[in-house]
């Protein structure tokens, strides 16, 4: 089994990308691959919960569920969060310097970007 990394770089305004990434993440877990997930650029906006009915709030909840489904690590770029004034408070989320995202990219076997 491979270690698959899913990188979200698009915000909630590209709804297809977020939904497609979550689908791919669930399938990866279902087929017993190791999965870790990173958020960079506008992708960190997926971690911001808003109004209950907004699509990106639904995405944020589904992303939170990925940790409980077995994703081994979820990490977000501190710089990208700070640029957008976002402070997600999730115990399962590692907020790391951008350089750590680069190191993470080097450590996974396959990367799917959404």
């Amino acid at each position, binding site marked *: 089994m491979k270690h698959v990394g899913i990188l979200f770089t698009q915000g909630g305004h590209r709804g297809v990308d977020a939904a*497609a990434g979550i*689908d791919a993440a669930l399938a990866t877990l279902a087929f017993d691959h190791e999965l870790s997930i990173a958020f960079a650029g506008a992708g960190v906006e997926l971690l911001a919960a808003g109004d209950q009915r907004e699509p990106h709030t639904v995405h944020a909840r589904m992303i939170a569920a990925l940790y409980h489904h077995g994703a081994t690590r979820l990490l977000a770029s501190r710089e990208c969060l700070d640029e957008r004034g976002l402070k997600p408070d999730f115990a399962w989320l590692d907020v790391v310097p951008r350089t750590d995202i680069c190191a993470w990219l080097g450590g996974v076997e*396959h990367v799917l970007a959404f």
Partner: protein
Amino acid sequence: MRFSLFIQDSQDAGAAVASALGFARAALSAGHSIRQMFFHGDGVRCAGVDLNGDADLRALVDLADAHTIPLLACSTWIEKLGVVTVNRIQRGSLGQWCDALDDSDRVVSFRA
């Protein structure tokens, strides 16, 4: 090296298909192999395109046929987007994609 290609945008939404075609040609001509080409998200719209109307997509499908590379479009997204499949791109599942991950050295994603 064995590659799998993950195509995430339709042929008319940017350069995803053209880039995938260029990459596939280069990889095959350099002696590499391609395990699978998988269309996902908006990319599944490619399965509903008349190949006579899109040179890049037709060339990609012809290349896949010539090298017996499976060309699959995610059936969930086909249903979600209401795509009517009309060409040689087959319906596939994310399970088939996950199998390809196991058999591939590298995955390359293409989007607009």
